[in-house]
């Protein structure tokens, strides 16, 4: 797993209070990991802070699973 993927996973575990085993690439933040709309906003903000990127709202809407977050950040992280 890439360093970015490790960090993304750690953030999700921390912010959503879930077990590492639940954080699979297919896992949806809202359907599988118990996030509500505010949790999702917070996750995006944490990704922005950690990876020093700015994720526009229209792109943030497409980040709904762990795998989508990892691939977006692998592409855009500085």
């Amino acid at each position, binding site marked *: 797993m890439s360093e970015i993927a490790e960090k993304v996973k750690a953030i999700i575990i921390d*912010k*959503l*209070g879930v077990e590492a085993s639940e954080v699979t690439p297919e896992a949806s933040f809202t359907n599988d990991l118990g996030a509500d709309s*505010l*949790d999702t*906003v*917070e996750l995006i*903000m944490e990704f*922005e*802070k950690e990876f020093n990127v700015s994720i526009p709202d229209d792109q943030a809407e497409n980040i709904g699973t762990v795998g989508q977050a990892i691939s977006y950040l692998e592409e855009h992280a500085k």
Partner: protein
Amino acid sequence: MTSIRRVVVTGLGAITPLGNTAPAYWEGLRAGASGAATITRFDPSKFKTRFACEVKDYNPDAYFDRKEGRKMDLFTQFGVIAADEAIADSGLLESGVNKDRVGVIWGSGIGGLKSLQEECFQFERGDGTPRYSPFFIPRMIADSASGNISIKNGFRGPNFVTTSACASSNDSIIAAFNNIRLGLADVMITGGSEAAITESGVGGFNALKAMSERNDDPASASRPYDKDRDGFVLGEGAGALVLEEYEHAKARGAKMYAELIGGGMSSDAYHITAPDPTGSGVVLVMQNALRDAGITAAEVDYINTHGTSTPLGDGAEIKAIEQVFGEHAEKLNISSTKSMTGHLLGGAGGVEAVACLLAMQHGVVPPTINLHTPDPEINQALNFTPNVAQERDVRVAMSNTFGFGGHNTSVIFRKL
């Protein structure tokens, strides 16, 4: 107000600088313990006041899962914890109560001060890019305690927060009382909480010259009615009551601590922070409470005073008591439990109502500690329950709280 709907107290909860449950709080009150010590929540070394009455040994993980706890300011956490204890004590959930008829009216003078402060600090330290947490507003707003208590328990009745500075949670108790009397709910969770021991809280109250600066001896700093008092000591925590319509409580066989028989409100209309030295607003509030309760002053056994240990406020309240109670004033037990807990601001009325109800239950009046050099300006013929608890069958107890803005509140409980 004459109402056929009577209101009783069926559950108590508290998290305080003296103990983290209502029974532990009572042990501290009865023993005359002080909750004051050097501030641990931040580095106070540059502050004029470097001590406060903090809740001790507090670990939010013992009460909340981490995700849930993170979304609540400390004042909300304290509120949920005290409310949970009171609800469990009342046996309400086990009784199959209709949750549409259960409401929550909570008191907080300030709301999530720490959350506000932290988010502002963080923005200021950054490069101007706003990175406010989506949980910032819901953590900070003062109604988040009442909201969280209802969400956790599914209580769908009336729900809001009262804010009247240090009178906030007596106002919430009175509002909850009225909601039941008016038939708008059968059960109300009420009380209040505060968590303002932060840089901005301590710095702000220091700027008002309202707080004690007795840094060399924190435990003796809160000393209502003592000549050497120099201001209040900041406290934190929560006190919760379950109020219930009498027939509703009786039908489910609930334990009843006492009946809430009256609530009074008034305003000084004098100054935004200073109490009216004549105490006329305080006279009015106690008269209003007695009238609402339909009792005479001579029926009162115990007054848990506002008594914050400030030079001006303590004397004005006592003058008002002398005026309202006349000769009976000397037969009262009077105490300021703020001498032990410090001043919980918007949480004061909640924890002090709990103190009154436990005093009635145990037949013991908790003391005013640190009363060593009586202030000659204050009539010392009155029984301030100095330093040591006194046994007394408390049939009727009055609890006063007053707030910046000139808000005065008084509630009266009577044994059933």
